[in-house]
């Protein structure tokens, strides 16, 4: 594979890996809250974390630009204080992938946590363990397979992110052109032979991820 294409493959993996770490850090606590706590605004929270799954990625990307763009609600302050903006950097690709793939993690993890036998949780409490001890030692280990399945599928989704990434990170060759974006460029300029390899690679990787996720998910039940 040539240099620019290899760059795209590496960038895609890097973006998806960083986004997946963030998704784990945010997704598991959010899924836990949605599964275990009854509070005002729970359904609203669930909706906010599900929306990117349903919205066109361009709409999600639009919101992200409004928030984090150089003149955005948050981005403006960041730019004022640091002179830096996330726009058109590979961090923007991470942010886009994170937001778009997070719902998959939250959904699968929430379902996995909800399927943990309530008696086991009650038993943990009667044995003197509090909420955090019970979550870490009983609930999460028993929801492990669902969490793994969610991680794999989120990684796959993050790697395939296109719409929001294009709006936020743009298409800068050698800087922000992840695989899906590189394929878009190659197809646009008629370089089919170069696109073929990458399309094939994306297909094989995605298939592999689905296989892995199914394997983990099956063992959840």
């Amino acid at each position, binding site marked *: 594979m040539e240099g620019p294409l290899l760059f795209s493959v590496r960038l895609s993996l890097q973006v998806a890996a960083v986004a997946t770490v963030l998704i784990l850090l945010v997704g598991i606590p959010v899924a836990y809250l949605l599964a275990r706590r009854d509070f005002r605004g729970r359904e609203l929270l669930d909706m906010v974390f599900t929306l990117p799954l349903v919205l066109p990625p361009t709409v999600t990307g639009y919101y992200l630009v409004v928030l984090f763009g150089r003149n955005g609600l948050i981005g403006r302050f960041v730019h004022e204080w640091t002179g830096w903006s996330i726009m058109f950097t590979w961090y923007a690709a991470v942010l886009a992938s994170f937001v778009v793939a997070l719902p998959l993690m939250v959904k699968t993890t929430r379902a996995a946590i909800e399927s943990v*036998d309530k*008696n*086991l949780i*009650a*038993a*943990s*409490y*009667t*044995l*003197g*363990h*509090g909420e955090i*001890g019970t979550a870490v*030692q*009983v609930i999460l*280990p*028993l929801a492990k397979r669902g969490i793994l399945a969610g991680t794999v599928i989120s990684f796959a989704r993050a790697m395939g992110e296109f719409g929001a990434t294009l709006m936020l990170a743009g298409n800068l060759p050698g800087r922000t052109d992840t695989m899906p974006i590189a394929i878009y460029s190659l197809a646009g300029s008629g370089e089919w032979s170069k696109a073929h390899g990458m399309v094939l690679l994306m297909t094989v990787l995605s298939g592999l991820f689905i296989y892995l996720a199914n394997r983990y998910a099956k063992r959840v039940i």
Partner: protein
Amino acid sequence: MGLQVGFQKRVNGFSLDIAWRIGNELAVLFGFSGAGKSLTLQMIAGLMAPDRGSLRLDNVVYFDSSTGTDLPPQRRPFGYLFQDLALFPHMTVWQNILYGGAFLPRQEKESRARELIREFKLAGLEDRYPREISGGQRQRVAFARALIRRPKLLLLDEPFSALDRPIRLEMRQFLRKVRDDFDIPTLLVTHDFEEALSIAERIIVYQEGTIVQIGSPEAVKDSPASRYVAQLVECNPPVQPTRCRLAAPGNCA
């Protein structure tokens, strides 16, 4: 001294209103399924809050709706045996037992675990998972896990009901021995009068969320307080409690 319980609770159209006290003894909560026995146990353990009432053990208040006292289950030093035992499937026998003593100093925890394993005839099974041992062994692991931190009260929610008869008889003996060794008030929920009769020092009879009789096994057997109790006692073992409940007194078919 002893355990003092007074609970009122409405849940899903069912209404519970009970009050009783026991000393340092083995008491059985007896009645048909759905009479509120397990609900009482859950409220004692703190897994569910009563609407009103109080719970005292040896003059320590664990729940009192009039003062707003409500200790969470993890702060109530009670051992609880669930009907399905609720052993952690992802932990070995050894890990399950240690989990019950997590807040003891490490050395003490491990020496107590070893002691319980020896006493409860679990030696050699330490590294097995719950699904890899027999029903009777699982029972004893659940006991060990609940007892390792020396609870001040032992609660048992029909843990023997799924066992074959010979093992069930063995577990009754076992429970009596545990109760004598640990010397703590012990509450056993059952709808099997034979079990109640063979093991209890005191029987508390439940009927649809109320208490209809409290007394020694002999008293309940020989002078049931009502027709209902007489029927409950006669209709045992209650293979089909629903049909039995509908049957006329003395007719348990």
